[in-house]
């Protein structure tokens, strides 16, 4: 071994072994726990699958909340939960003060008739409040006409015990529908269960949202 090789030996020993160890990738979690988020509807030509996620060009999604029944705080909280569900910048939202520029409008009250109601939350296990999300499609049936409207309404006097907590979790649940989760989870541990009782997103909710945002949607959204 030449003197130069001997000088380089410590360097090669220090760098070579660990460098080989550094090649392995992180082990990623399974998303097979996700539930079906797409909505199947009957059409004249047979069943059609409706799926949607907000495109990058429309982020951050602008959300307006009616200033009543603590809705602005519930919306802020709910959006924070959903923003945190994503690892790779798939979804971002911002609360706006002008409803005329909002992509999603959250109000108190019972959803009126009309439009295409993708989801309607009827709460039996938590009877203090109810929620609904209305998504209106154009004549082709493949383009959403904004804004998406979210309704959250107390069944009792708002100051009654449990009503505020119910409004909070129902708002987060309905915002999940406005993100593109058009179905309910079959599991009661999930926030997107039809009659949710949990207050935070479950791993299944997050996995479902991730899948929804990495699957080519069948619906687009019209300019606001």
């Amino acid at each position: 071994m030449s003197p130069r090789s001997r000088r380089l030996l410590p360097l090669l020993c220090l760098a070579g072994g660990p460098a080989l160890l550094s090649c392995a990738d992180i082990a990623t979690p399974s998303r097979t726990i996700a539930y079906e988020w797409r909505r199947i509807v009957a059409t004249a030509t047979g069943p059609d699958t409706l799926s949607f996620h907000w495109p990058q060009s429309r982020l951050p999604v602008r959300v307006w909340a009616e200033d009543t029944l603590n809705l602005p705080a519930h919306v802020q909280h709910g959006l924070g939960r959903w923003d945190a569900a994503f690892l790779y910048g798939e979804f971002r939202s911002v609360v706006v003060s002008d409803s005329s520029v909002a992509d999603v409008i959250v109000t108190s009250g019972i959803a009126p008739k009309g439009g295409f109601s993708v989801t309607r939350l009827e709460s039996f296990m938590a009877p203090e409040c109810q929620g609904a999300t209305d998504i209106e499609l154009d004549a082709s049936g493949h383009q959403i006409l904004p804004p998406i409207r979210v309704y959250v309404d107390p069944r009792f006097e708002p100051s009654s015990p449990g009503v505020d907590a119910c409004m909070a979790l129902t708002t987060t649940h309905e915002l999940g529908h406005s993100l593109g989760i058009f179905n309910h989870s079959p599991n009661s541990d999930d926030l997107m269960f039809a009659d949710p009782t949990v207050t935070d997103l479950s791993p299944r909710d997050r996995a479902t949202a991730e899948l929804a945002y990495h699957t080519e949607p069948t619906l687009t959204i019209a300019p606001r």
Partner: protein
Amino acid sequence: MRAILLLLVLTLAGGASALHAQVDYHAGLGVTWATALLRDDVINEIEVRQKLAPTLVLGAALPIAPLYHAGLELALTTSGYQSKETGGTTVDLGTVRTSSITLGLDGPVSQGLRWRAGAGLLRYWPSEERGIFLRGGTTRFLAGAGIDYRRPILAQWDLMASLRYDFHRFTTDELEARAFSQSQGVQRIAATIGLARGRR
């Protein structure tokens, strides 16, 4: 980490002591390239990667044997980072800064050329706590090696060009909370050019 920083400060402050003549200082500017921080698979493969990062390197070393020195090196980088989905979109995720401190040895290769090897700590400082950094930055063990080339330009000063390779295993508290197990091997290569003073 605090102890290492203190040691670095003391080493630098040592310039005023009797060690002054023996302490070797260097500083350089350059760029750092890194492999992916994370590879995931959600329908398609997703990769999170730092962009080419401007880099500042500061170092100080003392002789420990006739041909060998031991020293500390601080490296700072700042760059954007982004996610890229295979066949899909690229999303800018913000800015992440890194700071690393390594304790290393260096020795001669040939005239003007020296090897360096060391180990230390690397800290990621994201600009926003979101996504993979939702629960904040992360500190990782780091090991690396490199080559320095020095060419005298003034009585006390050398022009110094450096090439560094280092590696660490990357993960964050958020990834661990999301059931990502083990960690991602990240390799970085930095090229810098600067000035060195002290060694002849």
